[in-house]
């Protein structure tokens, strides 16, 4: 089973991915590598829209059949959207981690922070693929 690491996304070492949107917000989800380690995902807890979060804060929880895992904030800012559909269909995290299973969008406090995140090659090195 090969792990997917899309070249157009950015990554952090706690296994969240980041995608820059046209309006300057950042979409956040967990990587294919992370969902594989978790196994079947059965429960998701998301942050509230409007919450201000610092980098490294806990933004939510993803629970698989076997364990609970925190979802961390990869970039400082304000939550501007959350993927409510994911709460009803947590299995999307396993099926489509970079698509339907985005977790939340954050408007960065400092737009320059996005550039600091890892690129795909660096993340691949981190997870050894």
């Amino acid at each position, binding site marked *: 089973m090969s792990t997917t690491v899309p070249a157009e996304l950015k990554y952090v070492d706690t296994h969240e991915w980041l995608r820059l949107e046209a309006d300057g917000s950042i979409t956040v989800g967990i990587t294919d590598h992370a969902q594989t380690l978790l196994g079947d995902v059965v429960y998701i*807890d998301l942050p509230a829209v409007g919450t201000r979060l610092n980098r490294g804060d806990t933004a939510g*929880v993803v*629970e698989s059949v*076997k364990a609970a895992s925190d979802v961390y904030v990869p970039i400082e800012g304000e939550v501007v959207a959350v993927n409510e559909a994911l709460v009803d269909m947590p299995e999307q995290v396993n099926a489509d981690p970079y698509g339907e299973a985005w977790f939340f969008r954050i408007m960065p406090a400092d737009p320059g922070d996005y550039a600091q995140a890892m690129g795909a090659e660096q993340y691949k090195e981190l997870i050894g693929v």
Partner: protein
Amino acid sequence: MPQRTPLFDAHAAAAGKLVDFAGWSLPIHYGSQLREHETVRAGAGVFDVSHMTVIDVSGPQATAFLQRLLANDVARLGFEGKALYSAMLNPQGGVIDDLIVYRTAWDYRLVVNAATRDKDLAWITEQAQPFGVTVDERPQLAMLAVQGPQARALTRAAAPQLAGLIDSLKVFQGLPAGGWFVARTGYTGEDGLEIMLPGDEAPALWQALLQAGVAPVGLGARDTLRLEAGMNLYGNEMDETMSPLAAGMGWTIAWEPAGRDFIGRAALEAEREAGVAHKQVGLLLEGKGVLRAGQTVKTPAGDGIVTSGTFSPSLKQSIAMARVPAAAEGRVEVEIRGQCEPARIVRMPFVRHGQAVFE
């Protein structure tokens, strides 16, 4: 390096995700624990449980020995082939292990847990001495558990030579067939078989089962299946510090005849007389999250603890087994990651033959 069962190569071939389990390299799943769970509830799955320990006990004093060793009474095994579930206690009434004992042509066969193998063998051997019985471990045997509503039909198809024996077995019975031993027992709440056979013959049976339509199932689904079925797991629901009376195992203690002096009896009688402080219950989570072992259960009668918790694939909600104060009932709260979430005490099992049965 963990030990390998005779099916190690077969697990790799079936894309099993291998983990170290009680010193054995065994699959946690073969791709999806949820799908494997559902297959056992709806069709049939096979588990490699070769890590479990098979011990044969024989000799003229074998019955007297087991009546001393076990909290349940082997005199209840009225005929060859009958099986019994029992705890093996220490003198303080704590549980050394839980096991299944079969009455056999050579007297008895015990099947005990893998993680407790060494202490079990040491304890059994020590207790056996005054009775002069033979205690013979059978490490050369592999063991496959085929479970699910289709388990017996598909096993008949995979091993036609067993068809007559499979048809003759009632629930909780097991009999030899040549060097094999076939039992209608299991750990999932479904109908099914547990087959012990020489390790070098196990890969062929495994392949035949897969070809007949039985899915390989890992230890992950084994845990969610047994929890839905309300079955205890050694080390979670019970251990050497835990009384079987507080662990939902009161039904496995044979108090009669009153003169049978099994190990731990005096301690259990004293506990029963004083009033058992805790009881085992099922919990259904009504709040957010997933119940996990170790979480605190808050009840008006005092705090309890979750002993096993998971997301139930059959019920699509979180369930748990918990040890709570004896007076607790109805609604409780469970502390999940710092938040108190509502839950409800229910009667177990949660699922029986694929159906919700907790209410």
